[in-house]
């Protein structure tokens, strides 16, 4: 006899939890769809906090330690809130050859944040990625989901300032 478990209540009235719940329901609350569930949380909230991980663990009937283990293993999952704008500098080989490190240095000098950090006013997060596959546009940067290419450090900083000002 299998016991029917009750699913946990949504943590709050925030509508975004419904999206997360729907994603888990689509996969039949299967434990092996954990990564899908974490993607859903990150798409909805931008990062994974303890509340979200606990909710996912309870819903999928997994230990919280496992959820935390998976969340920390994969680079794409963020455990801290991100800035309003995300600037991902590609550091793949082609971009490296064409000066990705100059971009990172330029942004660090201007905004004072290294890859993985967010500015104090939460306006900008700088991240680095291992090849976004836009090698034809090297050095490539993904700014809020849009790939922009062939920029120098000065042009990139200018572009970022524009985005932040808007």
């Amino acid at each position, binding site marked *: 006899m299998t016991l029917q478990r009750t699913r946990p209540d949504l943590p709050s009235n925030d509508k975004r939890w419904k999206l997360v719940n729907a994603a888990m329901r689509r996969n039949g609350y299967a434990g092996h769809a954990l990564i899908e569930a974490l993607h859903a949380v990150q798409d909805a909230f931008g990062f994974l906090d303890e509340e979200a991980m606990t909710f996912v663990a309870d819903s999928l009937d997994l230990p919280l330690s496992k959820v935390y283990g*998976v969340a920390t293993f994969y680079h794409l999952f963020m455990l801290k809130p991100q800035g309003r704008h995300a600037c991902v500098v590609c550091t793949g080989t*082609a971009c490296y050859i064409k000066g990705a490190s100059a971009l990172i240095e330029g942004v660090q000098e201007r905004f004072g944040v290294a890859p993985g950090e967010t500015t104090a006013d939460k306006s900008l997060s700088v991240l680095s990625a*291992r090849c976004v596959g836009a*090698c*034809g546009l090297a050095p490539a940067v993904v700014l809020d989901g849009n*790939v922009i290419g062939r920029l120098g450090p000065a042009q990139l900083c200018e572009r970022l300032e524009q985005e932040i000002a808007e």
Partner: protein
Amino acid sequence: MNLDDLEDLAVKFRDDANEPETEVRVCMAASCQSSGAAPVLDALRGGCGDKAEGACKVKGVGCMGLCSAGPLVAVAPPAAALDEAVIYREVSPADAPEILASAAPGGAPVERLRCPSDMPFFARQHKIVLANAGIVDPDSFRGYVMLGGYAAMVQALTEMTPQEVVNEVTASGLRGRGGGGYPTGLKWSTVAKMPANQKYVICNADEGDPGAFMDRAVLESDPHRVLEGMAIAAYAIGANKGYVYIRAEYPLAVERLKTAIRKAKRAGFIGNHICETQFNFDVEIRLGAGAFVCGEETALMASIEGNRGQPRPRPPYPAEYGLWGSPTLINNVETYANIAPIITEGGGWLAGIGTEKSKGTKVFALAGTIVNTGLIEVDMGTTLRDIIFDIGGGIPDGRAFKAVQTGGPSGGCVPEAHLDMPVDYDSLKTLGTMMGSGGMIVMDETSNMVDVARFFMEFCMDESCGKCIPCRAGTQQMHGLLDKIAKGRASRADLALLEELCEVVQATSLCGLGQTAPNPVLSTLRYFRHEYEEKLG
């Protein structure tokens, strides 16, 4: 449904489409989109909307290859190959009226935008995997069928036994395109022989090598081709469930693959009783989350199961004990994309292309300091010199060539002296590098090889999953030594220690990531040792 029914369906689709004699294709792959292809497509569609019904057709297509000249637009008869098309480069929305005029009957090409389609970049390619790329609308199921798509699957399901399918693939001599080069037919027959009720087919689309974007281009340009290959594989080995494990960093490819699966399911080409046969096959997408090690097959399966993507020792191989313990066939995107033509044309046809031990063609992503950055497909056995200087157009700004890096962080650098080597799995191995998935990064004289080696070691250090000590600690130590050398603070003893460490990590790591992590160091030491020695104190 048999082949005749499918042909009837294609004819019906063609009649419904009522296409004009020339169509305008806009490259909507990720690279061209980033350089502004979407507004160009809108402008062309807008201009086309004013014309009479059936007088003009504008469609978004997949990768045309020459990424550095994007956004690309081609004007050609429907289904015509790219080298018969008029290709326009760096098109802006303002150019739309002129291009539409050139596509109308009697229109002359717009010479100021023209990119010669007889240039070596287009003329010297041999497209098998990319045959439909840049021609078919990736979101259109009908478009794929009109180009003869799914004929191989229908043929396999209705006219061939699973064993015959495996035999064709074995006869073709196809080897795994993910980098290892394991004979595909052998892999298929091993899984086919496993006495199990449940088997799985996995498509490895976790293209993690920096500088490689072949699989992404295939999925963005012709997703149905990959699904068809997977379905044929599932039929051959006796599986009814497939997974595509794809990087989350490729949102466009994920979107197009989802659309393709949805449309194929609706048309009855994926799902239960495919094309009214007894064969069932369902496909699901699983997203990666940014871990390079998940390209390793056992780590990939761990990730599909929802675990940390850590590899386990082999044997048992996935063919025996794979996903959830069931026999599992794992192939790369490009390998699956080769299957449909092998079934249609016969294994002997592919075996007639390429070199003695490496058959068929290979897709390469050309990047770095090279004139024609982009995606190419050439016969196995083409020399590196032809690829870089003829097809790739050589090095820009009059600088000198220094090395070409293949195989990503598991590969190595090939210097000028070996450029006349024909490229295949085995020749690259003798040069101390490997085919890898097909990324080729060209470096000019300004690149310092110690820096390059340090860059790759940093990559491996970051991406090491931490399960086995040689890789976890070894990459860290090797990176430290390389950093010391690069900064001019190292002694001869440090270099000797680095070489010793390379051997240890190579010999004792658990999976391919660690075993091949020293390769970039060893290969740069082999060809550019003086650059290391110059930096020693």
